[in-house]
């Protein structure tokens, strides 16, 4: 006999589990089908959480490496990273958080079905592996997420040529590491393994690092990476990668038209993530796809009534849909509330913050200067470097800046881009500013506590209106 639920969610990643909890809070009976042995999906198991844990290890090492500057005496011998201990601590954090999701499921009386789901006609989901059964659902939410994807010229072998899924588990620090792709994943692993001691080369097809960020941020990161001894190759196309028992040979076309071969112990492919839809039976169910992603409307309805989709697996058909945990969870909440008949409003994707935890950190929201000009705004900008701030001097973190992009006509804050200490935290103020349609003048009139890193935001606003106070 088929078990019947108000809502069946496929996938227990950040989008899926948040949607499930919200639906349960609104009184719906909910089941979640998950093929992994733990809840939490990419974010908790392979993505955000483990990588940021590794980055904290890298940061701890950085502070210890500079112990002498801080007046801390440590015994002779250079500080080194102990990978088994690093992984043990990281895995403990991941385990604690995935069990936390299990607890939330119990608390909200959500049924966790262990297995692989397949759509089985109107209002039905077959669980084809694991706890085989058929579930009946008044509403289905597909939240199957994404997986690392390579480029045609490179085949992943998971030992020498790896993805982020393996990069979080490397037993040893590679002597040399080449990273293909300089999005968030690429630059974060560059920071981690450079700090851990690898010789790191990062290769980007486009002319600059972190191509989605403001150009000024890209330039600052490249400057910092070079200072840290990371080799940066932008405008470079990898044509072939050959793995052998001793390492990987990477052939590439450089921007000056030459061919170049780089040898490394490990090649990390960080060129993006593709949708996970295999075996779901989407075509049979009549769901419209676009470039392999599930096409949804602005409230995440697929082409089939009663089936919604959220998170990394979707496209809204309006350009690149950000594959970020906080976007998926918001989409999950909106979808659950819509299904429960609550009033909902579409998400404004111009207000999605981006946080990249490389060293120095990047936090940004809204339009870059170039994008704002493309949209036809009469743009003015204000930039303030962290290095001037007393707070940054104390922390020994003098890199980076805050840059505000504003509309000259109505003084609207269009985007805020920061690179430097605590940027991933500082961006919160900017997200609220955009959400509440703040003007630069309001930011100027907002008191920024002293001494804090956040003073850079207030000063950048001053700069946008003419001149910063402390410059």
């Amino acid at each position, binding site marked *: 006999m088929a078990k019947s639920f108000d809502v069946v969610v496929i996938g227990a990643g950040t989008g899926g589990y948040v949607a499930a909890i919200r639906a349960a809070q609104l*009184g719906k009976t909910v089941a979640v089908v998950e093929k992994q042995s733990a809840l939490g999906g990419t974010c908790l198991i392979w993505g955000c959480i483990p990588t940021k844990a590794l980055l904290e290890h890298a940061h701890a090492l950085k502070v210890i490496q500079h112990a002498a500057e801080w007046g801390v005496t440590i015994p002779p011998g250079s500080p080194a990273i102990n990978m088994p201990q690093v992984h043990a601590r990281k895995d403990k954090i991941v385990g604690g958080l995935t069990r936390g999701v299990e607890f939330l499921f119990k608390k909200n009386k959500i049924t966790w079905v262990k297995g692989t789901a397949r759509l089985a006609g109107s209002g039905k989901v077959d669980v084809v592996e694991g706890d085989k059964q058929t579930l009946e659902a008044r509403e289905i939410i597909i939240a199957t997420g994404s997986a690392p994807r390579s480029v045609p010229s490179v085949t992943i072998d998971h030992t020498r040529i790896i993805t982020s899924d393996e990069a979080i588990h490397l037993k040893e620090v590679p002597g040399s590491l080449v990273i293909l792709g300089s999005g968030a994943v690429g630059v974060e692993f560059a920071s981690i393994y450079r700090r851990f001691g690898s010789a790191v080369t990062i290769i980007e097809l486009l002319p600059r690092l972190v191509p989605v960020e403001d150009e000024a941020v890209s330039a600052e990161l490249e400057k910092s990476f070079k200072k840290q001894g990371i080799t940066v190759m932008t405008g470079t196309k990898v044509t072939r990668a050959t793995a052998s028992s001793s390492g990987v040979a990477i052939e590439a076309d450089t921007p000056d038209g030459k061919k170049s071969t780089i040898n490394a112990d490990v090649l990390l492919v960080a060129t993006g993530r593709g949708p996970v839809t295999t075996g779901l039976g989407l075509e049979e169910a009549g769901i419209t796809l676009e470039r392999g992603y599930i096409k949804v409307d602005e409230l995440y309805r697929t082409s089939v009534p009663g089936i919604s989709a959220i998170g990394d697996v979707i496209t809204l058909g309006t350009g690149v849909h950000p594959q970020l945990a906080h976007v998926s969870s918001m989409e999950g909440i909106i979808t659950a509330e819509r299904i429960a008949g609550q009033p909902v409003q579409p998400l404004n994707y111009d207000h999605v913050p981006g946080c990249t935890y490389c060293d120095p950190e990047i936090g940004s929201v809204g339009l870059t200067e170039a994008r704002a000009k493309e949209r036809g705004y009469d743009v003015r900008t204000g930039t303030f470097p962290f290095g001037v701030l007393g707070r940054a001097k104390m922390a020994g973190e003098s890199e980076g800046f805050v840059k505000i992009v504003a509309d000259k006509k109505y*003084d*609207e804050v269009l985007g805020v881009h920061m690179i430097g200490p605590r940027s991933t935290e500082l961006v919160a103020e900017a997200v609220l500013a955009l959400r509440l*349609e*703040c*003007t630069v003048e*309001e930011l100027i009139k907002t008191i920024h506590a002293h001494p804090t890193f956040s003073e850079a935001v207030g000063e950048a606003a001053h700069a946008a209106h003419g001149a910063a106070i402390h410059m």
Partner: protein
Amino acid sequence: MPTPVLMPQMGESIAEGTIVRWIKKVGDAVDRDEPLFEISTDKVDAEIPAPAAGVLTEIKVNEGETVAVNSVVATIGAASEISKQEPLGSAPPPAAPSLDSVVPRDVDAPPAKPAATPRKTNGRTAAKPSEDDSRKQRSSPLVRRIARDNDVDISQIHGSGLGGRVTKNDILEYIDSETGTGDSLGAEAPGAKAAGSGTRDAGLGNRTADPGSRVEIKPLSVMRKKIAEHMVMSRRTSAHVHSVFHVNFSTVERIRQQKKAEYEQLGTKLTYMAFIAKAVVSALRRFPIVNASLDGDNVIYKKDINLGIAVALESGLIVPVIKHADEKNLLGLSRAIADIATRARSKQLKPEEVHDGTFTITNPGQFGSQFGMPIINQPQVAILGVGTIEKRPIVVDDAIAIRTMAYLTLGYDHRLVDGATGDQFMSEVKQQLENFDAQ
């Protein structure tokens, strides 16, 4: 210093008020905020508190008289002057000469003619909102900046953001529509025209009683007169049709019994009306045309659901409005209904609380009526009448069963709402009530 007591401005659209009753007599001591007199305006009846403590030294406007707002209706002597007053018990005549000079004479009330005062407020409901109102409209720093640069009144713009906040897109679209077609829908307060469609003569009193016949003649109260005008105007304005649905309240009754104690603990009573309101809100969202108004050749869709709840008073009827009823849950609706009903009966409603309804529910069933055929509350386009809720025999699965049942009637304006829509709306209400989701 003596304090003049003014006829209060009870709302932007209210030009005059009638003093129905003086609660204090000349010579009485009053505390600040103690009820002093009772007024009746075309919107609401209210008790007016004393603006200062002291002694009521003069009454300038007698009961039954109508005066313009801000007219001086009485004078209160300062507390320190109490000793100068005549001993309590012997009230001085209505014109105390000693304090007269400080009160401007030109605002004296005209001779009493309460039954003949023309309705001056017709057509004035679209008056420019005060600065206070525009500050209350939610917006953002950016919207205020755009408004300033373009000389736009934000209060005229419908807000699509959370809680009705006017967003950047709202104001830019508004400016576009202003400069584009020049014919802006949003600028006119909905219903302002409909309310003024020539209803000065309520159609009553055209047959006078024969002299000498055994009758007693009394002038209409202000409220009665307004109801009379409004009802006849509505009949003339709208093409009324009615649909009656028989609704099973057994599920609602079960939930009500289950939650009764819980709600009592929370300090409110869980009534059928709260369930009905919740179901209506949900149906209105599915059928926005039922939550609309007709204005000439335009349909005005109201984005907010403001539910009017008809409350019977001793001598009339008033329809206080639950604003943003769509943002309230069952508990919130229960509280709001109890609150406005209590305050309607104790004359504590503010004028703005009877404005801006988008749909009305009336409950003749409470007096035993099986169902009613209610008249639409203009400029709305529909009204729900709730018949008495009682156990009745009905057929369930080919057997006669006893169920808690009631007839619900939708009165609607066929100019805007067709029978199919009206009935679909009602079947949604019925469906919601019969399968009430008590989360």
